[in-house]
Every structure is written in structure tokens, then in C-alpha cells.
């Protein structure tokens, strides 16, 4: 039996393995598109708050959690961030890197980690279709959608994905 910290480290290593899937980003981009298309087919079943919607949220938490370290922000923007989750940036920046990125490409806040946006930029260059989406201006996050399914929100709650006066 492993003790707790060791178990956690073990799980961490397994997760890291899945994180490796983020390179190359093309594969993920394709997988993401396939999933989105499949969910669009069963759109009517995925009413927000329903059991089906909760199930999708659960698969997101587990699946995207393992691959992207998803934080369940409820408004997935991976296409515009080089298939790299912007919520893992300590400042949760969705529009690009802060000015504090270190000369070695590491994060201002956590010097031992690579800057999320250095990775995001690099991966966006290797995406197939949506790499240029990294130039888009993304709206501020709707914090009331935290912990809900981004897939479902995308299908049914478009009006909540930007503040009311935000230019669309």
C-alpha cells in the first residue's frame, strides 16, 4: 500500500501522462470537435440542470480534468488558447500572457512552472484549423457558470457567455 502523499504523486504521474496528450494539439482539436458535434446531435436532451446535463458535466470534470487540468469554468475557450486551459494560469488570463513572464518562459507566480501562455502560444502555432483564434478578444468570465458543463452552456446558454453590453 502506498501512503497518501505517494499515492497522490502516483495519481499525479498518471495525470501527467494524459497531459502529454496536449502535444500535439491537433489531435485534441479534432477530438474536441468530434465530441462537440456528437453533443450537438443530442442537444435537446441536454437541458441545463437535467440529469443528462449533470452527466456531461461529470465527464467533463473527469475527462478534461485529466487532459487539460480543467477547472470547470463553464465557458470553454480552448480553441482560442492553443488547447491550453487558461484557468490554470494563476491570474486566469484568457486574453494572453501577463507582462511578468520570466526570461526562461516560466511563470511569474510559480517560477518552477512553464507559463501557461507560452505553451498556449506555442501550441496554437501547431493547431490545424483554429490556431488563429488566439487573436480573438474573449469576454470576461461569467462566474455564475462555475462548475457547470461548458458543452451544455455552449448549446443552451449563449446569452450568458458574455456580459449583456459586451459587443458581439
Amino acid at each position, binding site marked *: 500500500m502506498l501512503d497518501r502523499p505517494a499515492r497522490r504523486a502516483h495519481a499525479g504521474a498518471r495525470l501527467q501522462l494524459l497531459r502529454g496528450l496536449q502535444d500535439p494539439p491537433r489531435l485534441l482539436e479534432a477530438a474536441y470537435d468530434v465530441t462537440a458535434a456528437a453533443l450537438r446531435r443530442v442537444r435537446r436532451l441536454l437541458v441545463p440542470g437535467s440529469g443528462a446535463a449533470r452527466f456531461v458535466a461529470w465527464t467533463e470534470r473527469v475527462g478534461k480534468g485529466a487532459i487539460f487540468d480543467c477547472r470547470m469554468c463553464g465557458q470553454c475557450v480552448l480553441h482560442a488558447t492553443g488547447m491550453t486551459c487558461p484557468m490554470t494560469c494563476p491570474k486566469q488570463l484568457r486574453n494572453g500572457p501577463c*507582462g511578468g513572464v520570466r526570461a526562461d*518562459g516560466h511563470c*511569474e507566480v510559480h517560477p518552477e512552472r512553464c507559463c501557461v501562455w507560452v505553451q498556449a502560444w506555442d501550441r496554437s502555432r501547431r493547431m490545424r484549423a483554429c490556431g488563429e483564434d488566439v487573436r480573438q478578444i474573449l469576454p470576461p468570465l461569467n462566474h455564475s457558470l462555475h462548475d457547470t458543463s461548458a458543452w451544455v452552456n455552449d448549446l443552451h446558454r449563449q446569452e450568458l457567455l458574455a456580459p449583456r453590453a459586451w459587443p458581439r
Partner: protein
Amino acid sequence: MAPLKSGSRLEHVLRSGRFAVTAELNPPDSADPQSVYERALVLSEVCDAINATDASGANVHMSSVGVCALLTRAGYEPVMQVSCRDRNRIAIQGDLLGAAAMGVRNVLCITGDGVQAGDQPDAKPVFDLDSVTLLRTARLLGEEGRFLSGRQLDVPPRFFLGAADNPFAPPFEFRPLRLAKKVEAGADFIQTQYCFDVPRLAEYLRAVRDLGLHERVFILVGVGPLRSARAAEWIRTHVPGVVIPDAIIRRLAGVPAARQQEEGKDICVEIVRQVRELEGVSGVHVMAFRQEQLVARIIEEAGLLPRQPQKR
């Protein structure tokens, strides 16, 4: 000359094609207004606008709103820095209205350093908005007269909007594109991080010109004196985003300790003269942490005087 959008004197200087100078006021750890006025007096003689920093480096000082209230009261021209680190969209929109009512016309929208960099690393980081969404929010207030929520304002504020940029931090190819986002979101002017590497800046400006951004935004290059070789070494290891090439540190270390401050000032003057020649540079932004007395000498020796008096 394009019509002024804000009534800002900084905007007036820039749009009339003059080389602009802004300077940073180090906010006091004090409740005494005099400490702000003493610093403003030194700076106002030699620059077009005074930046009031918003807990820069995540260290608490008198707030930028407070400093701006004092400065506008005395007729100075402030640039109010607004960082996303400490306040959410409710507080920020309210502060923007209050600032406009006090006569603040220039607002610099920045993300802000992480809380770990400052004297209260145990604080909660907010980052509800980021610099880009903050710019667009400020523009929404001014141009459409609406809050983010859509609620209508009675009298909208008029702002000359600024943003920061750091041409010296990776990912280098993304930086000009991020600048494009900021311009698209509403930035009228840019103040950059400290420049100690002119070739790097020149490369960045080339990419900026290729995107045509130099015609849509005024770029003020950040400059400042290094006090000593040791201080330079400390800054480059501890202050996020400041890049100081080895050559500069060697040059400082090459003179006796007593002369290093003078040498740091000389380097700064040289950098101002060099960046002035670059196409797409509209001014300089002088930041002299705890060396305010040097600001006037730098601006004078760089040949940027006289300037129009700032006081109304």
C-alpha cells in the same frame, strides 16, 4: 489633427505630434497629502502627465484613486493606473466613474503583478477582468455610456485610454498580436515595461509596424535609471518582467561604487536618445523608483526640455 476625445492634455501633446514624457510618482506610505504634492511638484515641471501607480509590485501604498484625487485637485495631469488584481468589475467601474468626476482623463489599464510579488502574499488575487477586458469595459462606459451589465449612464466619462506592454518578455512573437488586441479593445496609448535592451525593442517595433499598429496607438517606452550594479541584479531576479542584459550590469560594475548611480543615469539618458530615433515611438515613460530627483536630470540631459507647464 484628429479631434480630441477626452480633453486630456497628454492626448493633446501626442496628437499634436510632440514627443511626450510621462513620469511615475511613487505613492507614499502616508496619510499626508503633502507627501504626494512634494513628489508631484518635482515631476510636473518636466513631464506632460504623472502616473499614479495602483499598488505596483503588489505592495500597498496610497491608492491610485487617492493620489489622483489629490493631483486633480491641484491641477496636475494624472494617468490613473487601474490594476485587475485587487478589485472586481463592480469596484472598477465605480472607480472609473469617480475618477472621471474628479477630472481624471487618462487611465492606464493593466493586469497587475501577482500578489506573491508584494508585501502581502497571503492576499486573495481577484483578476475578475484582465487588461484587455478592462480596456473594453472602460471604452464601453465612455463611448456607449453603458455599464457591462447594459445599464445606462446619465453622463458618460471621457477617457484617453492606455495599456501596458512588455516587449522584453516571452512569447516574443505573440506580444505584437496581444498589443493588437489591446488596440482593438480601446487602447489609445501604450506605456511599456522598462527598456534596457534597445535592439529587442527595435525588433518588437518592426512587428508592430508590420501590423500597422504604430498608426493606431501612441507608444511610450518605459525607461529608468539603475542605482547600482547590485540593485540591477536584484531587480532582474525579483521584479517580474524586467529584463536587464548582462552588458548593462557589467558596465555598471565597471565603475567605482560611488559613481554607479551617475552611470545608471547616463545609461538611461542614452537609452532615451536611442529609442527616440525609432519609428513608432511617440514618447518615453520615466520610472525612477526612489530616485525622483534624477527624473528631471534625465529628461533635461536627453534634450526633452522645455515642456509645457502642467498646472492649470
